[in-house]
C-alpha cells in the first residue's frame, strides 16, 4: 500500500476501520458525519460485510452491541445529538464488557445547536456520558492521517481491554481533506474472544453477555473489576504528543482541531522569541496525567485552549503539579467562529508575560 491519497477525515476514519477488519457498520445519518455511513454503504458489501442504516441512533448502537457480542469487529458513528441517544447502549456495552468503535464527529450544542466544530462533548465522552460510572477509551485525532491511524488503534485497544472505544473528532477534522498514507493494521497480539456468544455448539457451558448483576456482592465486584481495568489503561495506554518542552517556560495544551490552531500559535510565539512548549493529548481517556505532572514539575504554567467554555482544563488541573498555574482560554463556537492562530498567540504572549 505505497500510496498517498487526498481524502476527507470522515473517509479516512472509515478506511481505517475497514483496514482494521471492521465488517459491520450500523448507523443513522446526521451532519457532519454522514460521509462515514455513505462510505460504508458503498464499500462494505464489496468486502462481504454488513451495512445497516438503522431506524435510529438507539437501534444502531444496540445492533453494534449484538454484533460485538458475537465477536465481530463492528462500529457506529454519529454526531453530538446522535451520540446522546447512543448513551444508553454505550452504558450497556461498558457493563457487558463489549468492544466496539463509536465515532463522534462533534458539532456544537447543546440541543440541536449548530453544525460547526465544537469540543463541548468532552465531558460526555470522557466522564461516562451514560449512567453507571463507566469509562470509554477516547481518542482525539487532529489530522486526516490520525483519523485513519486512531480508528485502527481504537479497535485493538477496545478488543484488548474489552470496552467500547470512542473516536472524538469534530466537524473540521471530519470535513477537511488532506494527505493520507494508508497502511495495513499493525500485528498486535490480542486475547482470544472466549466470551463470545455463538450458540453453544459442542460447548457444555452456555455463555451469557449481560450487565445485570443482582447476586450479593456481584455488582460491586464487577465494578471493581472495571475500575481496575481503567487504572491499567491509565498505566499503559496514555498517549500524547510533546513539542518543544525542553526549554519551555509555558506549556500550551489543546486537542483535536484546536491543537492544529494552537500549534500554529506556538510556532508564531517561538518565532517571536517566547519559549513555549505544547502537550497534545491523543488519548483523552486515559488522560495523559503523568505527562502533565512531569512537565509541570518544571514548567509551572499551562495554558489550555478548547472550543468550549472549559472542560479538558479540569483534567489538566487535576494532573498538574500542585504549585502549577493552569489557565484556560476558549469559547463555545458560533457559526464559523474558530479562533485564529494570532488570537491564540496573543493569549500565549499575555500568559507568558506574567512569568517574565
Amino acid at each position, binding site marked *: 500500500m505505497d500510496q498517498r491519497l487526498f481524502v476527507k477525515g470522515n473517509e479516512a476514519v472509515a478506511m481505517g476501520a475497514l483496514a482494521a477488519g471492521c465488517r459491520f457498520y450500523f448507523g443513522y445519518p446526521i451532519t457532519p458525519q454522514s460521509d462515514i455511513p455513505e462510505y460504508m454503504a458503498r464499500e462494505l458489501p464489496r468486502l462481504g460485510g454488513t451495512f445497516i442504516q438503522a431506524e435510529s441512533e438507539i437501534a444502531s448502537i*444496540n445492533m453494534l452491541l449484538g454484533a460485538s457480542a458475537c465477536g465481530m469487529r463492528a462500529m457506529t458513528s454519529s454526531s453530538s445529538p446522535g451520540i446522546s441517544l447512543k448513551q444508553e447502549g454505550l452504558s450497556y456495552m461498558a457493563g457487558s464488557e463489549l468492544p466496539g468503535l463509536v465515532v463522534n464527529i462533534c458539532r456544537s450544542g447543546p440541543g440541536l445547536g449548530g453544525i460547526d466544530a465544537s469540543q463541548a462533548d468532552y465531558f460526555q465522552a470522557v466522564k461516562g456520558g451514560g449512567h453507571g460510572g463507566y469509562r470509554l477509551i477516547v481518542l482525539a485525532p487532529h489530522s486526516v492521517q490520525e483519523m485513519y491511524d486512531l480508528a485502527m488503534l481504537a479497535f485493538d485497544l477496545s478488543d484488548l481491554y474489552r470496552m467500547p472505544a470512542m473516536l472524538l473528532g469534530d466537524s473540521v477534522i471530519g470535513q477537511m481533506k488532506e494527505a493520507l498514507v494508508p497502511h495495513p493494521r499493525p500485528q498486535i497480539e490480542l486475547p482470544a474472544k472466549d466470551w463470545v456468544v455463538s450458540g453453544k455448539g459442542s460447548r457444555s457451558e452456555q455463555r451469557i453477555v449481560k450487565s445485570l448483576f443482582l447476586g450479593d456482592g456481584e455488582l460491586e465486584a464487577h465494578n471493581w473489576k472495571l475500575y481496575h481495568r481503567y487504572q491499567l489503561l491509565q498505566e499503559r495506554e496514555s498517549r500524547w504528543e510533546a513539542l518543544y518542552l525542553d526549554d519551555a517556560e509555558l506549556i500550551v495544551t489543546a486537542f483535536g482541531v484546536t491543537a492544529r490552531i494552537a500549534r500554529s500559535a506556538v510556532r508564531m510565539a517561538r518565532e517571536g522569541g517566547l519559549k513555549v512548549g505544547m502537550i497534545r493529548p491523543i488519548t483523552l481517556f486515559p488522560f495523559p496525567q503523568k505527562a502533565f505532572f512531569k512537565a509541570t514539575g518544571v514548567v509551572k504554567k499551562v495554558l489550555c485552549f478548547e472550543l468550549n467554555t472549559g472542560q479538558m482544563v479540569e483534567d489538566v488541573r487535576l494532573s498538574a503539579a500542585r504549585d502549577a498555574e493552569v489557565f484556560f482560554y476558549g469559547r463555545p463556537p458560533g457559526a464559523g467562529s474558530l479562533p485564529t492562530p494570532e488570537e491564540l498567540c496573543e493569549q500565549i504572549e499575555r500568559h507568558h508575560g506574567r512569568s517574565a
Partner: protein
Amino acid sequence: MTKVDTPVFTAPRSLKKVVTHFCPGCQHGTVHRLVAEALDHFAVQARTIGVASVGCSVFLYEYFDIDVVEAPHGRAPAVATGVKRALPDRIVFTYQGDGDLAAIGTSEIIHAANRGEGMTVIFVNNSTYGMTGGQMAPTTLPGQKTSTSPYGRDIANDGRPIRMAELLTQLDGTSYSARVAVNTPRNVLAAGKAVRKAFQTQIEGRGFSFVEILSTCPTNWGVSPLEANERIATEMIPCFPLGTFKDWALDAPGTGAK
C-alpha cells in the same frame, strides 16, 4: 416378556433443571417450556442464541441452556439484528414483555419486522408491567386498574390497547404473526404449535416471525392463578382476539413469504 417403559412426558433438553423465580401462577414458566420444546423439536439448541430483554423474563439465561445476550429495555430486536447479521446461520429469538415491546421498544420491533430480519419474537402480553410492580402498559385494557391507572385506564387520557400481532401483520417483512393464549390446556397446545411455526419460519429462512402470547400476572392483577386464567378468557381475548394473522404457508406470494 419385559415391558419397555416409554416416557410420554419429559423435561425439554433446552431447559435447565432448576427452580424458576417466577411468582405462583405466572405463565412465563409455561411459555419458556413451549419455546424450549420448539428448540428441541427442531434440534437447534446448540445453534440458538436468545436475546433477553428487561422485565421479569430477563433471567431466561438462568432457565434456558443456550447462549444469551441481554438487551437494554425495548432494544432486543435491534440487538437480535446485530446477532443475526453477525451469525446468519444461528437461530435467534427475542423474548419480550408488553412494556418492553409495545412501549419503549415500538420502534425497534416495527423496523426489525419491516426489514424481515430472520428472527423469532416471543411476545408475552399480560397487560401490565410485571417486574416494576403492576403499572399500566400499552396493552392494559380500558378500565383496567393498575398502579398508574388507579381509576382504571381512561382511553381519553391514555389511549386504547395496542394490538401488536395485527399491527405487525401490515408490514411486508413479517412472514408469520399469531396471537395465542396459555390459559387452558387446549390453548397451551395451540400456543405450542404457533411457537413451533414461528421457529420453522426462521429455520426455513422465511424472514420475521412473531407470536403474541396472552398470559397472566396474578400478583399484579391481584387475583388467584385460576381467576387470572379466567380473566384471560373473559377480558383479554375479547380485546385481543386469538388467531393467525399472517402465515407464509397460507398467504399469497408477495406478501412477505419468501
